[in-house]
């Protein structure tokens, strides 16, 4: 989780966020996705100076993980909104910022990652703030669909 100290405005939005919300009970690939609000954090020269590597337009961390850096939006959420609503979680001895649970569920839903949607709703059902989800969803149907995932598992 050195990325958080190297790129201070990084908010984890992919596998790392799912892991932060679900513990180790989530399948994942080894690549990382971050939303970055402050452009200067990810200027090419700065990243290269930190030991990041750019190959075929793809970035790799100094620990050789592929990293996707989002500057504008992720699955329809603006980076500014992701950053302002993100939460801080402890991973080992350091703190990292990850996208809010409800936003992550909608991101996974929009990316058609249905396993992750079900896993997040099943395992974090009691932590979901449905009103917040309504406030950031595209429309009511999106939230109703998420509620139906919970209903299908007998949670609502």
């Amino acid at each position, binding site marked *: 989780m050195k990325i958080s100290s190297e790129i201070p405005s990084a908010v984890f939005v992919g596998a790392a966020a799912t892991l932060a919300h679900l513990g180790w009970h989530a399948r994942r*690939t080894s690549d990382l996705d971050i939303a970055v609000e402050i452009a200067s954090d990810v200027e090419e020269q700065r990243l290269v100076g930190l030991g990041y590597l750019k190959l*075929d337009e793809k*970035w790799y961390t100094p620990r050789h993980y592929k990293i996707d850096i989002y500057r504008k*939006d992720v699955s329809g959420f603006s980076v500014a909104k992701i950053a302002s609503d993100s939460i801080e979680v402890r991973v080992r001895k350091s703190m990292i910022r990850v996208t809010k649970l409800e936003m992550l569920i909608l991101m996974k839903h929009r990316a058609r990652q*249905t396993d992750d949607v079900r896993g997040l709703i099943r395992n974090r059902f009691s932590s979901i703030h449905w009103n917040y989800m309504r406030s950031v969803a595209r429309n009511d149907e999106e939230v109703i669909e998420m509620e139906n995932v919970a209903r299908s598992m007998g949670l609502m």
Partner: protein
Amino acid sequence: MQPEHAELQMFTRVQSTLPLRSAYTLDDLALALGRSKKTAYRHLQQLKRMGFVIASHEGVFTLRDSVFLPPSLIPKILPSLLAMSQERKFRLRNGDLGIERARHLLMALGGFPTLDYVAYELTGYQTPVAFYFYPDSLEQAIKVLRENGYVESPRGSVVLMPKIGDFSDPIRRVFYDSLAAGGRGILDAIAIARRFPKETESTDYLHSLLNMALKVEQDIGGSDRLVSSRGMRED
């Protein structure tokens, strides 16, 4: 193992009319099919029998997204789906997952491991979280797990399934199991197909699709990195 004609007809109808969603209601199914709720309920029961329904409660249900795979693949993944619909999950009585211990115990008994762990061994692509296993004897495997402190639990990560279908080609079986599982299993199946094209080439249409995807990926090269899911991404 071939689905009955009526079953296949119903399946094709569902596949061609149902939108891709995370969850459905009976009303959604009835609307998509243009039939009554009663008929939709009957179709839902058929989908359950085929192994496509993941969860269902009071008329609301979720489906494996393998339901949207090309119909020519369905007979090939049907044995996997039927086995998965009869899966039994275990974890240690103290709440631990107990995966490593169970792996050791079950492999010694004999059987066929599949999905997460095997897909990871074959491709190194996605980390595994559950141990799926087709024991030679389901009863014996359950007995051994119970004797060693395991209990059945819907949240268990040691998953036993009855041996249904053909296991003569291990890689192909793991490939079909991964396809049948849907979701991240489909990513595993694609990774397996790319690594073992010969063993998985029987899935003609899917294979040609994968080759086309590979061609597009190679042709476009890095230029797609500039575009995010909905707009321009500034790296």
